[in-house]
């Protein structure tokens, strides 16, 4: 009887390209990105950090609704997204609004989503995907379906989904990865391991040493990657995408990262379950700091560049909030209207009732 657990677990090593000091530690895997691409990646990370700060402030002023902070996870979210194509289909979780925005969801619509207005979920035609999933795990099984559909249609694109460390405990997580494996479907499953599911640390979530190893049971490829290293996340995603479109099947990618802020803005207090020491330890690994150092060494980024992006972000956010404010308020009659293609009789009656109510 051979015991294999330890040997399997030990084979999952965290993949890194750029260390905390912005030094390349894995030359062989340094992605082949142009200077413009590198600058664009940095621009997106800086922009998204500003968007996070502004969103938190706007939420506190009562000008945004539901919001799950993203700071700390930029490399994980944007490095992965940068390796995708416009035709790919995104199935994000509630924290993954940035990926949708960089895929082309207008900012004001992201704000309307936050405010609980369904126009936020009416995507432009060239943005393929779903609005952020609230039910943890649901997106994983759907991803298997989208991926199988892409395969059946002979498309050269992939289905890409995100969950957190907590999400890996759901049955849907295993079902989704297993289905995609069984159909050899072009899917990429991300687990953004930010160490906590609300208050529950990942050690209490599972006895597994890594979350990437969960791929093994489904017989699919799995990687653990430094989620604070944008180049590593990009490189792994790029490879997973190539494998998927080449018919080599799905990949599970664990990005090891951290969320600096509270779980959401609805009353979570991280001091109840995390120490300042832990926060500080992770902030030293900050994805922006290390990538900035890397770019500065290449003379590709300066303080002026940084400030320009910050100002640009602030301006665009301001304009988008204004546009969201101006968007017509959502009414109950609008909700009735979107329930079915054709209104059934009970809703026809209720439509009349609420029209009258709303006209008062």
């Amino acid at each position, binding site marked *: 009887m051979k015991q294999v657990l330890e040997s399997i677990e030990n084979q999952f090593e965290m993949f890194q390209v750029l260390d905390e000091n912005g030094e390349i530690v894995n030359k062989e895997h340094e992605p082949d990105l142009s200077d413009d691409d590198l600058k664009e990646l940095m621009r997106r990370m800086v922009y998204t950090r500003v968007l996070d700060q502004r969103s938190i402030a706007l939420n506190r002023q009562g000008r945004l609704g*539901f919001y799950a902070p993203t700071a700390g996870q930029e490399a994980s979210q944007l490095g992965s997204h940068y390796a995708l194509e416009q035709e790919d289909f995104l199935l994000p979780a509630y924290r993954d609004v940035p990926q949708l925005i960089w895929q082309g969801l207008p900012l004001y619509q992201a704000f309307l989503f936050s405010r609980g207005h369904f126009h936020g979920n009416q995507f432009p035609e060239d943005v393929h995907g779903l609005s952020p999933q*609230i039910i943890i795990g649901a997106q994983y099984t759907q991803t298997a379906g989208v991926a199988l559909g892409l395969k059946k249609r002979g498309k050269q694109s992939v289905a890409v989904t995100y969950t957190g460390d907590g999400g890996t405990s759901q*049955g849907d997580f295993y079902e989704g990865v297993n289905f995609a494996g069984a159909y050899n479907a072009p899917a990429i499953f991300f687990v953004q391991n930010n160490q906590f599911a609300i208050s*529950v640390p990942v050690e209490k979530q599972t006895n597994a040493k890594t979350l990437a190893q969960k791929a093994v049971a489904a017989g699919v490829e799995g990687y653990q990657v430094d989620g604070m290293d944008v180049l590593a996340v990009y490189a792994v995603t790029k490879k997973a995408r190539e494998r998927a479109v080449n018919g080599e099947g799905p990949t599970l990618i664990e990005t090891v990262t951290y969320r600096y802020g509270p779980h959401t803005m609805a009353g979570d207090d991280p001091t109840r379950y995390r120490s300042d020491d832990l926060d500080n330890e992770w902030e030293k690994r900050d994805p922006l700091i290390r990538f900035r150092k890397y770019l500065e060494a290449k003379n590709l980024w300066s303080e002026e560049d940084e400030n320009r992006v910050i100002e640009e972000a602030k301006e665009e956010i301001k304009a988008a909030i204004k546009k969201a404010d101006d968007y017509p308020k959502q009414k109950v009659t609008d*909700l*009735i209207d979107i329930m079915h293609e054709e209104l059934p009789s009970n809703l026809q009656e209720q439509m009349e009732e609420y029209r009258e109510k709303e006209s008062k």
Partner: protein
Amino acid sequence: MAQKTMIQAITDAMHHELKSDEDVLIFGEDVGQNGGVFRATEGLQDEFGEERVFDTPLAESGIGGLALGLALQGFRPVPEIQFIGFIYEAMDALNGQIARMRYRSGDSKSAPITVRTPFGGGVHTPELHADSLEGLIAQQPGFRVVVPSTPYDAKGLLISSIRNNDPVFFMEHMKLYRSFRGEVPDEEYTVELDKADVKRDGKDVTLIGYGAMVHTALKAAEELEQENIDAEVIDLRTISPIDTETIIESVKKTNRVVMIQEAQRQAGVAANVISEIQERAILHLEAPILRVTAPDTVYPFSQAEEVWLPNHKDVINKVYEVINF
């Protein structure tokens, strides 16, 4: 007597039961150190330790199955489902397994489990958090469904639920958690399950509700009093089974009924309550029984929540309709 919020009363009840019965276990997502996202289990892990009050991995079906397994080992589990919208994940564990345990074992096993979950709307949550899904559980034979509307009832009903040897689905309206305080004795006490409560005496019309709608009904009754309409308000408290005795007694006195629920017209338990009344007391009715409910859409995106939720004006309108019939 202490003035407490409903959430404090609920914590109190769990505290008593953890203390008085060492088989009581409390678990769920974030219920340990964090004290639950609404702080219902605040301080309980500190006092009773991780063996009795603990976090689970993030999986509602797992929580349901774990509860049933622990019950089979003689424990009295009190799992929390973090928000009502997540019961879909646990539906097989709840309706498929827990509710049927006594039956399928030929009465040789039982499932003394109390599943607690926040529900209801009006607090601007994202999708699938706020909802009134009580109908899904109330329609499952084998489950009792309990919905308190006051801090006093919450404590007494939760203690009764935990002590009951059959499964109870215990629903806590999110809007009532902290919106007001009420008298709650420090000592333990029980409130009888399966018994409705007359929250206001009246003779002209019976308003029946549960959860937050009891307060909507009471507010309507107060305004109606100005118009010399004397409304009786019944709080169902247990919505499966229905206490028809208390209801019929009231109907015989008032001869008019308005049934109020926050759930959509096609959901909840209103249709069942109305059916029970007409089967038992049709000759006592002076008017058809009318309903105040939410419309038959999916729970609204939060921006339209206020108009979507039934309010006391809707109740008053229906009262006039049954009075002027």
